[in-house]
């Protein structure tokens, strides 16, 4: 196992940040921690990167115990905190060689690992890190986390606050790194990114809701989902919430995701109900369940 946690708990004073968390990440796996803000994702990262000592439970990273062998872990993992935490007043190149030096290596030694990413920011290598765009900063931070050729890479919400194009690029980079044999633990609040992971753990309020491949999690979804659209979104949700057979309703882009309590559900019946409620342009169709639906269902 590259990463394994068993029964990890951590509280800050009275607040229980994570409770009794256990999961394993296989070598070379791209594993996602999916959950809303405050779910306990960062706490798990801080425990695994030896910045926090858990109250209970044990964990191993790259075969080392997080408490007893913390020194070995520090030289064999790469960590990219959620907040951009490089020196804003140093240039791209200076930041990179700084981290290379404190890991006792050089940029040249592991250049092949970061080459794909570094070539994209190389034109700006004499620019101060603080003056880079959000996507560039993420790439630089990833380079700095990779410069010592880590066995395990920890990425805490790497794409939060990054534009959609850069996000996509970033995930492509992760896939390439995975092929080079690096185990990656990534957290994200974006459900669409969850589908890109090999396996995911859905986490809320410091507890794990489910761990499986994204496909399996979606397939476990028990209901049929309908995309419902109408001229007035707000009124649509209100009307659906008043509907007697409602199971769940969530806004989803330009539609709402609706599930019904009954096994036999007639689209026409719901349509006439909504028409009676005064809505027009009503559009109802069967939709594919996704991870967000699964998460909402599990979090109920």
């Amino acid at each position: 196992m590259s990463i394994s946690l068993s029964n990890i708990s951590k509280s800050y004073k009275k607040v229980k940040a994570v409770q009794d968390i256990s999961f394993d990440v296989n070598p070379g796996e791209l594993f996602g921690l999916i959950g809303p803000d405050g779910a306990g994702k960062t706490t798990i990262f801080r425990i695994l990167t030896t910045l926090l000592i858990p109250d209970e439970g044990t964990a191993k990273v790259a075969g080392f115990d997080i408490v007893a062998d913390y020194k070995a872990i520090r030289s064999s993992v790469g960590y990219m905190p959620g907040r951009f935490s490089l020196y804003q007043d140093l240039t791209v190149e200076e930041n990179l060689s700084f981290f290379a030096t404190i890991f006792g290596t050089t940029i040249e030694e592991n250049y092949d690992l970061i080459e794909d990413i570094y070539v994209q920011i190389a034109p700006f290598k004499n620019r101060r890190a603080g003056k880079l765009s959000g996507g560039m900063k993420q790439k630089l931070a990833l380079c700095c986390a990779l410069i010592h050729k880590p066995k395990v890479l920890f990425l805490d919400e790497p794409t939060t606050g990054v534009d959609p194009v850069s996000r996509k690029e970033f995930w492509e980079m992760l896939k390439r790194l995975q092929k080079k044999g690096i185990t990656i633990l990534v957290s994200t609040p974006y459900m669409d990114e969850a589908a890109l992971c090999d396996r995911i753990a859905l986490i809320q309020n410091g507890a794990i809701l489910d761990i499986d491949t994204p496909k399996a999690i979606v397939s476990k979804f028990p209901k049929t989902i309908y995309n419902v659209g109408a001229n007035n979104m707000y009124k649509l949700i209100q009307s659906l919430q008043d509907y007697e057979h409602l199971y769940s309703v969530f806004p989803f882009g330009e539609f709402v995701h609706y599930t019904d309590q009954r096994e036999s559900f007639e689209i026409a019946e719901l349509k006439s109900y909504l028409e009676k409620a005064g809505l027009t342009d009503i559009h109802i169709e069967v939709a594919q369940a996704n991870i967000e639906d699964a998460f909402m269902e599990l979090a109920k």
Partner: protein
Amino acid sequence: MKTIGYIIQKEFKQIFRNKGMLPIIFILPILQLVILSNAATYEVKNIKFAYIDFDHSSTSRALVEKFNASTYFNVLTDFPSQEIASSSMLAGEVDVVLEIPNHFERNLLRDKTTDLSITINAIDGAAAGVESGYVNQIVQSFNKDVKMAIMNTSKKAIQPITIESIPSFWFNTTLNYKTFMVPGILVLLVSMITLFLSGMNIVREKEIGTLEQINVTPIRKSQFIIGKLFPFWVIGMGLLTVGLILAKVIFNIPTIGSIVLLYAYTSIYILVILGMGLLISNFTDTQQQAMFIAWFFIVIFILMSGLFTPIESMPRWAQIVTNFNPIKYFVEVVRMVMLKGASFTDILPQLWKTLLYAIAMNGFAVWSYKKVH
């Protein structure tokens, strides 16, 4: 070693790229040294002096003339009555009022003794003390003149027997206040700047989040701390150099003792201050908090260092507390070496205490610095 070297290099880059910080480090201390050294004086000049002369004799006029001749006093007015003098003092128009009683001359000639009344505005206690001293000096000198005059007129052939003490001020013969203030202010600047900078430095990495990234690296805390603090040690020594040059060039302060000795002592002294800065960093989360705590300590240290008020005049408990004040030792050493030419053995007691302090402070600071929470 390579790691430490790289961190030091990085720190210097960051210091010199911080456009707001550079003037704080180098320009402000120079300004402070120049301004404070010229302003912080114990001398009180232009004392607003007034008198009430009820006697109107030649002797009373001679006394007033003595005050007039003094460079310290500005003889403003003579008041006809005590009430007017009091109200003028109340309004802050005069600082010192001399009241010469009726029959002043007559009593002096006949009884060989008389009284004078002096009223001093003591809102500023320190100034009042100095003013009282000046007044006494003038009255004493007047007293002597009068004695001579009386004796001459009475034609007694006896020479006056007076015991006069002529003070000789060692190590500062002219009692030039700048000679002892400038070295003191130099100490203040070196301590203040290095404490503030080192106190805020590691906390800054906490604030911007880089410390979290650094903590997940195999770097040893000793490497990190040395790398972070060494640049401020260099800056402290640099400030001392700039200050010494200014002291020589602008104020012409004598440097009798060995400069090497002064540098040797300062190099240990700065370690105490850096340890203190690190300790502040460890127990604070923001630069603002660090700044306030550093400020709190520096004010106590400065006021209890013997720089502005002599330690001998403090209450017993305060004198004991000053033993824990590193600035006190530095002030002593700088004055001893620069003005008295103290040798290595002379400053050995201070050196030992400072060294112990440095070891204790840094030991505690390093121990309390934690990478894990």
